[in-house]
């Protein structure tokens, strides 16, 4: 089944007001759930209140491949033309290699694929996060020193 066909089925579910539609064939499985009912709202997730943590800046940090994992379903879309880099790990976000230095990138900068965007510190290790597309940085989400979760939005890049 291709994307077009899936879209057709999704439209069908939405138009007919179906609760769900499920197809399974060989290794393939498709499940579409209809528009959310007004009934029970999704339970509100408590907003995490992170305290600032002291950080030891290190000379050399390991590089992590910017895996740009498939953004989790819950990550809201920013703009269809913008690629969002999300955090592949949990840790503390830093925009510069040390407190005196300039940020790796600023909004408006053009970045190459593989350019370092930021550092995320986890377990005293400084993990460099790289751009997985080339383009223009149009948004920087977390503040310097802010804790980030897995899957949290870091930067918006409009691909070149």
């Amino acid at each position, binding site marked *: 089944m291709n994307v077009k066909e899936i879209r057709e089925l999704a439209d069908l579910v939405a138009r007919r007001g179906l609760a769900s539609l499920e197809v399974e064939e060989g290794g393939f499985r498709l499940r579409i759930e209809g528009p959310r009912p007004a009934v*029970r709202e999704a339970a509100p997730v408590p907003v*995490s209140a992170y305290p600032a943590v002291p950080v030891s800046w290190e000379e050399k940090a390991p590089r992590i491949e910017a895996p740009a994992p498939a953004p989790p379903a819950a990550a809201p879309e920013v703009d269809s033309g913008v690629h969002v880099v999300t955090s592949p790990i949990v840790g503390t976000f830093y925009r510069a290699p040390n407190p005196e230095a300039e940020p790796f990138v600023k909004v408006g900068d053009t970045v190459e694929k593989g350019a370092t965007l930021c550092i995320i*510190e*986890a*377990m005293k290790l400084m993990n460099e996060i790289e751009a997985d597309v080339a383009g223009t940085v149009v948004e920087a989400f977390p503040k310097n020193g802010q804790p980030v979760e*897995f*899957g949290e939005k870091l930067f918006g890049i409009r691909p070149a």
Partner: protein
Amino acid sequence: MFRKVLVANRGEIALRIIAACKELGIATVAVHSTVDRDALHVEAADESVCIGPAAPSASYLNITSLVAAAEITGADAVHPGYGFLAENAHFAEILEEVGLTWIGPPPEAIRRMGDKSTAKDTAKRAGVPTIPGSPGPVGSTEEALKLAERIGYPVLLKAVAGGGGRGMRVARNGKELAAAFELATVEAERAFSNGSLYLEKYLAEPRHVEVQVFGDRLGKIVHLGERECSLQRRHQKVFEESPSPAVSPELRERMGAAAIAAARAVDYVGAGTVEFLLDQDGSFYFMEMNTRIQVEHPVTEMVTGFDLVKEQIRVAAGEPLSFPRVGGATDEFRPRGHAIEFRINAEDPEKFTPSPGTITTLHVPGGPGVRVDTAAYIGWRIPPHYDSLLAKLIVHGQTREEALARGRRALELFVVEGVRTTIPLHLRLLDAPDVRHGRFSTKWLERWLSGETPAA
């Protein structure tokens, strides 16, 4: 006492730990994978951190993410629950290195009890009975016969290189043993390219009886009686109770003392469980020690009135054991009434295939002597990535009969729709005369499920 505890788990046990922290006035941090974003433990905790994608290896087993989550939230201790990293000594050590308290036993105790043969040796040296058998491979038929004569028939031959029941043979007397030894050697040679055999005492219808122990940092170790967990399917416990229908007060004290000795041998601290095989003649043998809180801990809570999870946290904070009147060197342990836990899994009650899905209706039973531990709620989509435990129904009565009757009515009033559950299995189990009379071994349930006439 801790200010903030990170709960490195999910599901009902995460909720259970959060409840214990709340009662102690400790703030909580929940961690979750992307598919557990709407899980109840996330809602119940004071804070939450997404630690990775659905795959457990990338989230709930991801030590780096967990430590980072504790660091960014300022937690000062971590409770691992059961499963996942609960028996990972390495995780415990890392936490202590970065200055976080591990709510669990010392890493060294985890390690020594985690390795089967080290554990058995440790128990043996502590004077705890282990299944008698050859210390190493048996060289010849003559050696096997001599050994069997000493430990008594029936005996079991098993391939040194074997596993999963292959290359195992039971012999009831010398003649059978002589024949079996040759056959098993050939079989093992063929199957594993190694004909060496162990010989040990064979327990025809053993029960799985485990003893709850608890130690504090001051060196005190007590036991809280036993749990009968013989009703198992593929080594998964289905139905647990305390006390065991097969354990007398005198046997309870002997098993309790043995369990304490095993725990003391590894300087145990916190909640632990010493599992024994109990033979029909009342002999019991050390199987292994679980160095964590168990799924079935509520049955012990019901017959003691103690809160084992709060006690884990207190003990980890350095407090002495708070239990009054428990089993130990000077006290005799007396269970208060009878408790049974029914594990309600989201799976087909006959084929045991998992049944993930969305819960459309849920009504949990209440009333006297009924406890339900669950993280389920209406609208919750059970993720297929984790275990299928949906709820634990625990009942307590003055007698085993009352507990059984209470279990039946609670199961009848327990409504889950949207997924299939093992509630019908438990109702069928309660109809089985052997279950009603407590006559079963670890082999009973699979025999019964396969339709063989139940004979305990």
